[in-house]
């Protein structure tokens, strides 16, 4: 590693490209993406639909395979990283298995990794508390509200203690009030655990509020148009969103999005 910074690189991508073959010619989902994410970063990927932000996250998670360039996760290929269980992934929907209780849903990755029952119970209890769901472990997913289900799915991603958390529009389907609440909780969690978080969103306030680095992307071909370092303080109450600095950063993101937007 020839990194000049003191923090180590968690994700490094160079000239990353991904082309799908569609019926009416190739689609460039990603093109020439250069990216470096350092340990402990909270990075938001923002852009209009079709800009490849979800695809990029899926490439990091080894759910899609790049067709050009290179990418490493924790210094390994994404596949090695996946096999080492290097990351937790939170999907757009909770994707909880209906036949398992919340506890057993959170325990699912631990079962697959072959952890002992005692270790499993301990971790499940800990992560349930972390997301504020203690007392709900014996419920089934369909007995909980949408916000609680999504919290359970975050708990599931946290349960196996990977240092990297990949989140694909996790709060997209929730209403504004629940969303604010979960954003606050997520920030607390980030501070408490010091994990590296990649967060895909299409909401500008959400991206600015949460992250210390914002990656602005644009579609056709999907590419990175701007990377904005945020200097907001670590302590962020919800009303920081009305502060001058917050609005300036949001304005810069908006400009980046507008420039990248094409009207073909």
């Amino acid at each position: 590693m020839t990194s000049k910074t003191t923090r180590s690189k968690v994700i490094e991508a160079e000239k990353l490209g991904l082309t799908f073959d569609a019926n009416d010619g190739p689609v460039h989902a990603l093109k020439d993406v250069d990216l470096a994410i350092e340990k402990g970063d909270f990075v938001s990927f923002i852009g209009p639909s079709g800009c490849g932000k979800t695809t990029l996250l899926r490439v990091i998670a080894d759910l899609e395979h790049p067709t050009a360039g290179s990418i490493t996760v924790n210094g390994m290929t994404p596949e090695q990283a996946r096999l080492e269980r290097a990351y937790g992934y939170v999907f757009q929907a909770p994707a909880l298995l209906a036949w398992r209780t919340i506890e057993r849903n959170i325990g699912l990755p631990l079962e697959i990794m072959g952890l002992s029952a005692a270790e499993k119970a301990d971790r499940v209890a800990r992560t349930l508390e972390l997301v504020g769901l203690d007392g709900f472990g014996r419920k089934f997913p369909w007995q909980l509200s949408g916000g609680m289900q999504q919290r359970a799915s975050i708990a599931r991603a946290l349960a196996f203690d990977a240092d990297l958390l990949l989140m694909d529009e996790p709060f997209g389907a929730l209403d504004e009030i629940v969303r604010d609440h979960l954003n606050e909780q997520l920030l607390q969690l980030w501070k408490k655990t010091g994990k590296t978080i990649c967060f895909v969103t299409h909401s500008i306030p959400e991206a600015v509020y949460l992250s210390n680095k914002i990656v602005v992307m644009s579609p056709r071909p999907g590419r990175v148009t701007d990377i904005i370092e945020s200097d907001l303080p670590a302590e962020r109450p919800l009303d920081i969103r009305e502060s001058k600095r917050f609005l300036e950063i949001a304005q810069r993101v908006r400009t980046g999005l507008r420039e990248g937007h094409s009207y073909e």
Partner: protein
Amino acid sequence: MTGFQRTIASLGGAAGLAAMVLAITDLGTSGIGLILGGILLAGVGLRHRTGVMPQARLDLAASLGGMVLLLSMLDGDMPAASWPLLIACWLVGWLAVEKSLAARDMSPTMSSIVSLAVPVFFGAWIIFVWEMLTVGLQVPTVLLPPPSMIAVRFAESTSILWADFQQTVIKAALSGYIIGCGSAFIIAILIDRVPFLQRGLLPVGNFISALPIVGIAPIMVMWFGFDWQSKAAVVVVMTFFPMLVNTVAGLQATQAMERDLLRTYASSYFQLLLKLRLPTAAPFIFNALKINSTLALIGAIVAEFFGTPIVGLGFRISTEVGRMNVDMVWAEIVVAALAGSLSYGLLSLLEKQVTFWHPSNRRKIQ
């Protein structure tokens, strides 16, 4: 009360009145009982015009009272007044059902009792009317024996029925069912790994499921002999394809997001199968198991029409029909019906236990 309910009530009352008038004009044969019954039902039916005491249980009691009265005087020479009384009982009973279903302020336990009691009441009515008509109108027993006669025959020939049950249900249907469903399940899991076979076998399997497979019975009898093995073979073929098609469809029913989730855990093929795909397939598999439980009995019984040792439901049905012992045939049908509904009921119960999480079962355990 809705207009519909009022109509039933008035018609029921009118029928009760008619019964009363007929009974009075024909006092010699009718007796005092029918007059009183007519008055009771006319009163209950027509009270809705005045709106006093609208409780459903009053209607139910009057209907049941009329039924008891009719049963007590049941013989081959029913007075004319008993037929309008029967109609009055039916209409007033229907009214009771309508009213208790429309009641809004019911506790959950009460409403589940009602929803259980209504079909039971309806079934009892069918048997009652069957008994009334066959005995009262002296329908030849060869055509349709009354339920009481079938019940007597059933009680008298339990040992024959038990032997037939063992031969057809336990030996032929059950063993064929287990082999057919089991092998289809295993093959479904095997071909699930080969998309090419899936795309080829699924349409063919769907096609074969729609064919009249019972027709292979004579061939199976030639190949496997007269005893239960040939019937089991028919059952194997009949149950195989529904199970295959449903299991394959069920294994494909997982959502992409759930599969991605397990992939991010680097789970193995068997972990994916056990923890995600088989649970998702369970409702499909139970669907096939339920369809097959009926198909298995049909296959085993029909195959016996092509030759059997001298025991078995199908054998008994076809020979007793020839001897015009229709009550014995009906007793065998009762055995077949009990076997069919019990196995279906057991499977449904098991399904509710296993797939309690499925949206169609959720409300009941919450």
